[in-house]
């Protein structure tokens, strides 16, 4: 049985690898197929034909697209992300420090949102149909149905315009005290935590309710266990797998959220870099950032699948 589970996981990882290959192909061709000649755009209208031809050769633009794709892919695997069109700096240098910033933002958000979401999700399932459950459900649907930037702007309106606790839309670079760090991270983390928790609460609640509906939990209730006891001692241990799956899946919403949040709060992370890159059409930068986000997203989704496989007692 153990080898069977191992096989399933290896199969899942292979699919993730294949998916990544197709994704990188899609990203490359979406950006490589752009109308207009990159060399001409870079050098401007006044460039001599010789200069354009020279640059084309230097950038390997005269080769077929498939060759360029494999050149780009091998570079990517070796850690060479190419050179930015705009300021001629290695893309890896541009991304380096900002990657740490984005991971820090994502990490703090995870630490904040997982405990809150699990508590709300499990208690809502425990008291299903109560007023409390209905309020939680309506709020999560509300958060899911509005764009992320609306949560960010609402947070600014509440915490900085009306309550005046936090600065609005400014990211100070001079950080001297712990209090300032807290102020800087508060708003982005609140926004992201809302987006991620709403998904997590919904999925956790659904997972716990699924387990509550099984006959053995009903038996526990019939023998006289209280509802909280039946949920916490009987249902929850069997819902750990689906809940872990829900956590990993909802964390994948970080990828979309972080793009909006870093832009609106001017946070120096990879997503902000990428959005800035889009306005300057800096393709190597965009390709690298896109691949980084795709890897993160795919890793979380694959993790969710593997957790689901491991947690299924029928496969153990």
């Amino acid at each position, binding site marked *: 049985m153990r080898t069977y589970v191992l096989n399933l996981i290896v199969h899942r990882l292979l699919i993730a690898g294949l*998916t990544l290959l197709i994704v990188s192909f899609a990203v490359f061709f979406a950006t490589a197929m752009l109308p207009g000649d990159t060399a001409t755009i870079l050098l401007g209208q006044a460039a001599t034909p010789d200069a354009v031809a020279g640059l084309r050769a230097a950038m390997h633009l005269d080769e077929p697209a498939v060759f360029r794709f494999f050149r780009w892919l091998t570079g990517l695997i070796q850690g060479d992300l190419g050179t930015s069109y705009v300021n001629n700096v290695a893309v890896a240098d541009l991304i380096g420090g900002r990657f740490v910033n984005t991971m820090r933002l994502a990490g703090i958000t995870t630490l904040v949102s997982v405990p809150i979401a699990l508590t709300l999700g499990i208690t809502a399932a425990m008291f299903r149909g109560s007023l409390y459950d209905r309020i939680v459900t309506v709020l999560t649907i509300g958060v899911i149905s509005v764009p992320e930037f609306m949560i960010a702007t609402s947070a600014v*309106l509440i915490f900085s315009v009306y309550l005046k606790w936090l600065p609005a839309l400014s990211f100070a670079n001079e950080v001297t005290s712990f209090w300032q760090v807290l102020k800087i991270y508060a708003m982005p983390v609140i926004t992201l935590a809302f987006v991620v928790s709403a998904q997590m609460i919904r999925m956790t609640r659904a997972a716990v309710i699924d387990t509550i509906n099984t006959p053995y939990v009903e038996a526990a209730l019939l023998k006289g266990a209280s509802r909280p006891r039946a949920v916490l001692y009987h249902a929850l241990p069997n819902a750990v797998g689906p809940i872990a799956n829900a956590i990993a899946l909802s964390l994948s919403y970080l*990828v*979309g959220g972080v793009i909006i949040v870093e832009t609106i709060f001017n946070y120096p992370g990879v997503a902000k870099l990428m*959005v800035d890159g889009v306005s300057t059409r800096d*393709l190597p930068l965009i390709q690298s950032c896109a691949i980084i986000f795709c890897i993160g997203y795919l890793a979380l989704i694959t993790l969710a699948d593997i957790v689901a496989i491991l947690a299924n007692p029928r496969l153990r």
Partner: protein
Amino acid sequence: MTLSTPLSSKFSYSFSWVGMIGLAIIVFWAVIALAAPHIIPYPIGEIVDEDYFGPMSSKLLFGSDYLGRDMLSRLMMGARYTVGISLAAVCIACFSGTALGMAAAVIGGWFDTVLSRFLDALNSIPSKLSGLVVAAAIGSSINVLIVMLAVIYTPGAYRFARALAVNVNTMDYITVARTRGESILYIIFSEILPNIMGPLLADFGIRFVFITLLLSGLSFLGLGVQPPYADWGALVHENISGLPFGAPAVIVPSLAIASLTISVNLLIDNLPKKIRDRSA
């Protein structure tokens, strides 16, 4: 009368009042979007207030924007772009996704495997990221936006339709139709499609919400609808500097998006079971 009784029992669905409110708000925005050019109080490009980010008043119901233009008029015209682009994109996405999904379920074999693998891979690119990449590569005219949104959400529609069609495909009457020698097109459109129509409609609504949210998000980043046109997301984008003053110009378009997306969600959640789960 005898004739109308079975008809009315077939077509009268019991809507809950929450669903009715959702439907009413959707119809309201649809009417605004259609009638906007005739009912806007001021031309959208005209500066009517000497102050920018003006407050709500009886003259300017939703205040003025960052140039002193009337927000109410801009919001009404914005409805055309938000609703129109999303609707066009969701129609293309659901049509192509459903057609491919049913074809994959009926044809099966290599066609199914390759198509599923490829579209699943596309599905594992975060939607906002695809939007950014396309906006960078091709730019964002309205036509490009519609096609891009449609392509991003086709894999999801495909997956949903395929899962439904695979279930129907195992039914006896499909086997009968195959034995009869019917063409694949006949099986898809006459045997499978009518049986999965209800859930497909619900999926259409959910996908419309996704597309509206993505379009608004991209416009908010300044990469969606470009000036001089402005959808609701672009209205928030251009007025974002009014946020520290709590200007209505920032808040009102956000509320408009929320009212539309939440209404669609409410309507779908409260659809009569008859429509939603007909083949489930």
